[in-house]
């Protein structure tokens, strides 16, 4: 059973590459700047946010633009990725009706799509960081750890959402609201200090807070995050992936009735 799944995965691996390549091409099909937008749009957003918030949080957060951009990159990746995974079955229905491709590949490919966009955004992120005075350090190479964990989390979460979203399209609207709420409970544009000390443990219940904190420790604070945080992060990723896979597996046989 397990062996068979691995074989299947390997068999369709070239397909994953092709689909990601195809979607990437289509995404920037009619824009003049093309791929450059992956790098330009976070920069422009950062400009706006910095102008608005840096006066408020200037004293408590050093390198505010990096603080915000780093958190936002990871947050947008997880949210955009899971939302597009949720819709991936519906959006690829014409293909699913005609070809035999394991359904979960569409979830993986749509998340991977956003992963690539985010990796590209890391270039302007580090460019800005160095300009505003963040010191380069070997820890920066470790940012791939939280990114991979967030990637696994997003695939799991996206598959979970997809298992329900394929049947009930209202989930899209709910998701938009939930995303906004999630943005506010995650310290992305505000510092964690504004929350009283005895409530801060609650942040750790939020996987996004955990990933973002690890990312910031590596990318701008030049420190090693606490072991506890690293374990919690790994735990969230694996648990979510298992949850997503089992839910998806249970529901996927009925997808074709709804697409």
């Amino acid at each position, binding site marked *: 059973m397990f062996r068979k799944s691995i074989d299947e995965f390997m068999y369709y691996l*070239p397909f994953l590459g092709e689909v990601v390549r195809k979607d990437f091409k289509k995404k920037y099909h009619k824009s003049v700047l093309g791929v450059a937008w992956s790098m330009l749009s976070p920069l422009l957003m950062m400009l706006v946010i910095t102008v608005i918030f840096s006066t408020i949080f200037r004293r408590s957060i050093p390198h505010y633009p990096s603080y915000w951009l780093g958190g936002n990159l990871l947050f947008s990746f997880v949210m955009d990725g899971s939302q597009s995974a949720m819709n991936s079955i519906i959006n690829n229905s014409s293909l699913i009706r*005609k070809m035999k491709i394991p359904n979960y590949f569409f979830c993986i490919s749509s998340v991977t799509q956003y992963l690539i966009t985010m990796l590209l955004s890391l270039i302007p992120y580090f460019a800005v960081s160095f300009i505003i005075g963040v010191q380069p350090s070997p820890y920066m190479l470790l940012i791939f750890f939280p990114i991979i964990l967030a990637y696994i989390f997003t695939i799991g979460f996206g598959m979970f959402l997809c298992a329900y979203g394929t049947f009930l399209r209202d989930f899209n609207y709910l998701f938009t609201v939930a995303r906004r709420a999630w943005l506010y409970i995650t310290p992305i544009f505000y510092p964690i200090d504004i929350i009283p000390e005895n409530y801060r443990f609650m942040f750790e219940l939020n996987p996004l807070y955990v990933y973002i904190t690890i990312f910031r420790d590596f990318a701008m604070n030049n420190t090693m995050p606490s072991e506890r945080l690293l374990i919690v992060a790994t735990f969230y990723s694996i648990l979510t992936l298992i949850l997503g896979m089992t839910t998806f597996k249970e529901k996927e046989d009925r997808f074709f009735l709804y697409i």
Partner: protein
Amino acid sequence: MINISEQAVETVNPIINESLRTNDFYDDDEDVCVNVRNVSVMFNLSKNREEGIKEYFINMVKGKVGYKEFWALRNVSLKVHRGDAVALIGRNGSGKSTLLKTIAGIIKPTRGSVEVNGTIAPLIEMSGGFDRALSARENIFLAGAMHGHTRKYMKKRFDEIIEFAELEKFVDVPIKNYSSGMISRLGFAVATCVNADIIIADEVLSVGDAQFRLKCENRIQQMLKGGTTILYVSHSPAQVKKMCRTAVWLEKGVVVDMGNVNDITDRYMQTIK
């Protein structure tokens, strides 16, 4: 499940209709490449198909969450041998496409099981899952990847595919600008070039001009000799007789009869008149 065997097995089944009718004649034959056992497929009719929470709750309040069932296939059993060409005939809505999709693994049977030995290239509704915004070149790589082929492998077959589809001048044009004949030519060329063991062709040869149809028929004959199995749906009795040895007659999701293509097709045509 997934093994890409390139060995060419040539088989002739003189008593194919007997074997299909009795269904246990070849029971432990290794040459069976598609084995459909008592397959039933149920659809929920769209009446109560909830697409939103609101509808779901309204239906729940009305006590209508139960579905109106529709059985597209009932207890279909079928064995196809390697190198055989089987035609599915029957009226619209008789379950031909559903059966093909079940064999292709696109639809999971509600009851029963489908066993397939070998790789399948499904050619359903002409285009084998093409993306209309992409060019023929990109679609060939995409379709190849759906059959587990790497870019490198497809590059080797690329010229052959384009040549067969006669699309040399339009390689880099998005296929949304193609005519339906051009798309079906490309679909056919790709499906027959990916080295699948079983080809599922749903109404593919009805499009395209006479010359191309002839070319396709020749290609199919050639592949049959090489051991490829073909499952074929067509509404043209002449074409069915020409291409296939065996026919399966479906009516309202039930197999009426199967056997020699000439007998079955003739009897089917009589019921229409």
